[in-house]
């Protein structure tokens, strides 16, 4: 059990990192990575939403879609579930924890339909074996951690790019994309870590 949790962790955070290996959630990865502060905010919000939506979509899949043989509705049903869930979480947070609500701020509704969130829910369905619910939720949380790691690393690089001496034609987005590809290459080094 512990072993499989560890493997899930390594897999979700490093080997199959959502952003730089699976290329999901590129939009916030490029859009919200100009400063480390905002990148951390975005990352925490993603961890939050991925964990909860993993649990919720697992329930929808298991108790609604599977018994009715409607698995082909996964995508649309999951989008619905995630959107509603994020709204609910936002309301609950506003009521119960003002500090967390303010800290997450605009990022919480922003990632409602982030493809990485949908992706983690769909990929969770491939998990086999016992304790699938627990594994799905853990996979969601760890994938969020992987997203946070990637976006914070990238934000650090972009902050340095601000003052770096860059050829005129590469300033701004071009150099960001080049650095993103280098980050992605670096993460490819984790391939084959676990046999």
């Amino acid at each position: 059990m512990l072993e499989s949790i560890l493997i899930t962790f390594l897999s979700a955070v490093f080997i199959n990192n959502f952003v730089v290996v699976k290329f999901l959630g590129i939009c916030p990865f490029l859009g919200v990575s100009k400063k480390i502060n905002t990148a951390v905010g975005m990352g925490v919000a993603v961890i939050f939403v991925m964990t909860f939506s993993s649990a919720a979509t697992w329930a929808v899949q298991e108790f609604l879609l599977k018994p009715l043989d409607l698995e082909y509705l996964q995508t649309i049903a999951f989008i619905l579930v995630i959107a509603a869930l994020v709204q609910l979480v936002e309301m609950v947070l506003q009521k119960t924890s003002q500090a967390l609500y303010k800290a997450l701020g605009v990022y919480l509704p922003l990632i409602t339909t982030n493809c990485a969130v949908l992706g983690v829910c769909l990929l969770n369905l491939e998990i086999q074996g016992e304790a699938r619910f627990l594994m799905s939720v853990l996979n969601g949380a760890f994938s969020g951690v992987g997203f946070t790691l990637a976006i914070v690393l990238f934000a650090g690089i972009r902050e340095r790019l601000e003052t770096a001496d860059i050829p005129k034609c590469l300033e701004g987005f071009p150099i960001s994309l080049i650095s993103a590809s280098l980050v992605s290459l670096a993460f490819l080094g984790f391939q084959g870590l676990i046999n």
Partner: protein
Amino acid sequence: MGEILIAVLIISGLGLVFGIGLSYASRVFAVKIDERVVQIREVLPGANCGACGFTGCDGYAGAIVEGRAPTNACPVGGSAVAEKVAAIMGVEPEGVKRTAARVLCNGRCSVSKEKYEYQGIDSCAAAAQLYAGHKACAYGCLGHGDCLKACPFDAIVMVGGIARIVEDRCKACGKCVLACPKNLIEIIDKTKKYSVMCRSRDKGAVTRSNCQVGCIGCTRCVKACPQQAIFMEGTLARINYDKCDNCGECTKVCPTMAIRVMDFGE
């Protein structure tokens, strides 16, 4: 046909359940916001400059309602806003002191000496790192316009290599005060015309050799002031604005013209 119907029903059913659930949740988890906060927020200028000492207009509006802040703390809105806020809160309006920022240095390029030729990043903060800046006077305005970049109201202009505040536009938010690495900018009552336009702590002879218009600490203004509003801080004259009555005796006796009228309109 039946299959499609079931699929449609399931999805729309899900949607309906979530819709009802959310609308119910929005009632249960409704956060009560004091109406006055919203009203005050609308009256405030919305510059979010932080001059009131709170995180922004939202923070200030909340603080007023909770009784943590006075109704007249917004320097951007001035007395007009203070009156409206006081009306919403149902208290007597208090006047707002009209203040503005002032750059306390007169050392234009033409009257001050340079220590070396600076070719680094165009920023006072960066220049100040290198032997306290390129000006011979370690206290003077470096003129790279860090304050100008910090000003949200376009109230700062560069004249002859030093920063000047256009007082009509200045809202006294204090952003420039924080931005200046030389601590040259002060928020001063707008009605007080005279200021010692120098911050040099050097001895008189040193100041004089660095800059033609610096305060050399001769104390003539201290003696000349009928209100005893001027005092010495080491070799630098300072004005106590609570006592100053704008008579202008100080500027008449100042040998280096360090005490000046700052009148810099649009």
